[in-house]
């Protein structure tokens, strides 16, 4: 797809490639540092790890308002098709909404979230910013506008197709899948994707890498 991607290789031959699908929009920035630490930890365990830019995000030259969820799903499938050897997909939050068209030996999802919840937060941020600026807007009025024209939500100019897609997007069933949450039974750590300012959590990055490595063995990767 011609987008940049970050790739971290192990010292020797790789056991498999882990395709990291980051959270969407601002949540991607808040988690990027910890995800890259997890990629390094994976490389130390013999995995190659790749985190692609989605079209319209990061260094992409594609205007964000030209993309939608279907485009992101297709772009990830294309990235995956170019990867040699066994592949495992590891997705976070909204990334779990776009990871199911990829062909892989297994899927790992952390704290999956429905698109409606992400959209609600984005629209609320706009309502809140409007209120500060003395403009009256509401979830309803903005949702209606979004049916006709792109909407600027928390710095993201989103197309009607993207907004409609997010509003109805649910995490899709796929096999084999390990879906984990934060907490004692899952990954110990804090929900960095909610954080108003970017943070990092090295222990959480290690826990993510260890959990993915264990899951890869169950998926038949040596």
């Amino acid at each position, binding site marked *: 797809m011609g987008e940049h991607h970050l790739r971290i290789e192990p010292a020797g031959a790789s056991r498999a490639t882990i395709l990291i699908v980051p959270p969407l929009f*601002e949540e991607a920035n808040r988690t990027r540092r910890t995800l890259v630490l997890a990629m390094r930890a994976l490389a130390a365990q013999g995995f190659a790890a790749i985190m692609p830019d989605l079209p319209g995000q990061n260094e992409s030259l594609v205007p964000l308002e030209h993309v939608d969820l279907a485009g992101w799903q297709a772009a990830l499938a294309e990235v995956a098709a170019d990867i040699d050897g066994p592949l495992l997909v590891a997705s976070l939050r909204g990334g779990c909404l776009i990871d199911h068209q990829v062909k892989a030996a297994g899927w790992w999802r952390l704290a999956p979230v429905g698109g409606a*919840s992400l959209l*609600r*937060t*984005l*629209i*609320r*941020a706009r*309502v*809140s*910013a409007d*209120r*500060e600026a003395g403009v009256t807007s*509401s*979830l*309803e009025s903005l949702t209606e506008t979004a049916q006709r024209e792109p909407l600027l939500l*928390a710095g993201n100019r989103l197309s009607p197709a993207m907004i409609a897609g997010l509003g109805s997007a649910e995490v899709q069933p796929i096999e084999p899948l390990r879906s984990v949450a934060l907490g004692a039974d899952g990954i110990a750590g*804090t*929900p960095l994707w*909610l*954080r*108003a*300012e970017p*943070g990092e959590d090295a222990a959480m990055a290690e826990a993510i890498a260890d959990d993915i490595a264990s899951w890869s063995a169950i998926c038949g990767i040596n």
Partner: protein
Amino acid sequence: MTDTPATVDATLRALLADILGLGEARAAALTEDSGLFGELPEFDSMAVATVLTEMEDRLGIIIDDDEIDGEIFETYGNLLAFSLRKVTD
């Protein structure tokens, strides 16, 4: 709902700690009069939106647009009072 005022208070402190990166000690030290929006630099419009969505998820409530005014986010006490009102509705 089985939420007691104490669990609502604990839930609210935990979500503010998560979103504002306060750390447990600062979150535990919040009092009724502690200022939020306009006082804590991290508390911007995106944080307000995230707090509302997380309140819905963690407290099992639905918050309508027209219930929100600036006062709710002025102090921790106001936000707690609003949350307690919502869970007992």
